């Protein structure tokens, strides 16, 4: 009655040809149903209509070298292809803006330093004390390079800081300072003391409820009113303060998420050890809460980075605004698309890298949870 099919395992066979190879792939991924076939055809049509003209504009008909805007255009004064010569001409202005031309190696170095610092912070092996030493050292160096006035470097006031370094300063310094403030806000929101809790909630909700622009306006027009007569702070610092105040409210909500996710047992264990509130928070609660929220923190940072572009409203020359300013050159009129695409590419590189990084972290963290 028993049936034995085979004593030895059956050999593996290759799948039928219809399901492998290019044809199999096409069938499985593009034409596996009527609906999908229609979708594929629409998509192909869309690509056929958009891609060739774009490639023609950006590469084939593009002008890579020209003395001025006129030379970039076709015979009829009409632009035929992209005028990348414009970007070549304005490259240093877009990147470093009004920083003295001969000194522009300094902001370049600052950009490199910032990137190095961020990359170093992305490496998980560096997390901990080493970063806490690296960052202050890096920031001091950046300050020296930007301001100068020592070691024989020419002094350059903040009104000349512009372009990419300014964007990076606003974003990174903003985050660095917003972070401790955000931690305090998050702790305040979860405090047992009603007065502290209420003030924290009011601050967080107020700031999160209004657009960044209003905070920037406040910093630029209201801050001078707030200060005693005679005291002035420069524009960059005002914008920086606005950023810190704004970013802290959003950051604190992310951190609060981490605080909420900490199991109660951890806090009870700390209490059992007789640690006071501050030591418990510093040694047990925060380290766990912060590691848990690193991916959303990175996302938050991306948001802050993009938000720096709003400072053009209060007249600072960040990367976007230097691109804007480059467009006003009477010799090079009407190349807005080129300028904005180039600037967008720079923003994109930074943001895309960070978002990939946060996705990678999320995956590794997820695995940690499952194990």
């Amino acid at each position: 009655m028993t049936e034995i099919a085979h004593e030895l395992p059956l050999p593996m066979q290759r799948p039928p040809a219809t399901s492998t190879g290019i044809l199999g792939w096409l069938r499985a991924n593009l034409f596996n149903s009527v609906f999908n076939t229609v979708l594929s055809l629409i998509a192909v049509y869309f690509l056929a209509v958009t891609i060739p003209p774009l490639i023609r504009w950006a590469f084939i008909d593009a002008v890579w070298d020209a003395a001025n805007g006129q030379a970039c255009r076709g015979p009829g004064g009409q632009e035929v292809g992209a005028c990348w010569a414009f970007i070549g001409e304005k490259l240093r202005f877009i990147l470093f803006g009004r920083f003295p031309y001969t000194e522009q190696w300094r902001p370049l170095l600052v950009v490199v330093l910032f990137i190095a610092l961020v990359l170093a912070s992305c490496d998980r092996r560096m997390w901990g004390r080493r970063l806490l030493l690296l960052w202050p050292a890096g920031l001091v160096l950046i300050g020296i390079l930007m301001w100068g006035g020592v070691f024989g470097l020419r002094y350059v006031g903040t009104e000349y800081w512009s372009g990419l370094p300014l964007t990076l300063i606003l974003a990174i310094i903003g985050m660095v300072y917003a972070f401790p403030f955000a931690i305090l806000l998050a702790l305040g929101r979860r405090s047992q003391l009603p007065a502290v809790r209420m003030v924290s909630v009011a601050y967080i909700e107020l700031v999160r409820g209004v657009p960044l622009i209003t905070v920037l306006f406040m910093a630029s027009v209201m801050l001078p009113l707030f200060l005693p007569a005679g005291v002035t702070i420069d524009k960059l610092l005002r914008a920086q303060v606005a950023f810190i105040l704004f970013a802290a409210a959003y950051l604190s909500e992310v951190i609060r998420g981490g605080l909420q996710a900490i199991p109660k047992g951890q806090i009870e264990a700390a209490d059992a050890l007789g640690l006071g509130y501050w030591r418990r928070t510093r040694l047990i609660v925060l380290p766990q809460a912060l590691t848990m929220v690193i991916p959303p923190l990175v996302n938050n940072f991306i948001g802050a980075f993009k938000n720096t572009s709003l400072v053009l409203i209060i007249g600072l020359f960040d990367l976007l605004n230097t691109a804007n300013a480059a467009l006003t050159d009477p010799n090079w009129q009407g190349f807005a698309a080129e300028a904005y695409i180039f600037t967008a590419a720079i923003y994109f590189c930074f943001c895309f890298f960070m978002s990939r990084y946060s996705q990678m972290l999320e995956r590794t963290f997820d695995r940690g949870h499952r194990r």
Partner: protein
Amino acid sequence: MSNAAEAMPGKAPVQSGARAMIEMQAVHKWYGEFHVLKDINLIVGRGEKVVVCGPSGSGKSTMIRCINRLEEHQQGRIIVSGIELTSDLKHIEAIRREVGMVFQQFNLFPHLTVLENLTLAPIWVRKLPKKEAEETARYYLERVRIPEQADKYPGQLSGGQQQRVAIARSLCMKPEIMLFDEPTSALDPEMIKEVLDVMIELAQEGMTMVCVTHEMGFARTVGDMMVFMDRGEIVERAPPAEFFANPKSERTRLFLSQILAH
């Protein structure tokens, strides 16, 4: 290689006279390049209980899921209740109406109450009046011994209760065949029995069942036929008594010694 599909019907006494409810003939399936099902031949007669076992990754779930087209086979034929499974949506719908399935993870709909879980398919697929569907649902809840939970949400029930609701949900469609894919392996030991009791009762009423499980006690009690799978093929099939007492294949023996060791 013997063609089991042709040889089978005469051989199995349970099936003589009974219409084959499930017929798998030389079924092959691949995941990409990976050959998961190799030449599967299986016939399940009306009222027959088939218990499928085998090591993890041997393709048990894949095989059972081919029967109601949760997975698509690429070669061979599968005929369920006289209807052949092709890519024809009409056939697939017809077969799914006749075949109930119970999953390891219950898969109850968390946004619906227990009663709504039970009446959803009868109303939308069988087109029963709501009142009638609810009556049927209450009847089956009674049968799985949780009539009082009708208005709760799945999230409020224990694992064993959820799995019994899942069984009742399938039964509400009045299926001719029930497929079980490791229905008790996500449950705590004390809940396994309550689910198995329901399944045994169901078996004793003559339901056609294909059951992937490692509950060997259950297999001995109700099984008509044991099917042992390994590396994507059916290695051995035999009535439970013979299967346990006297396994023919070396691979079966190895497997049995492993699961019966403790």
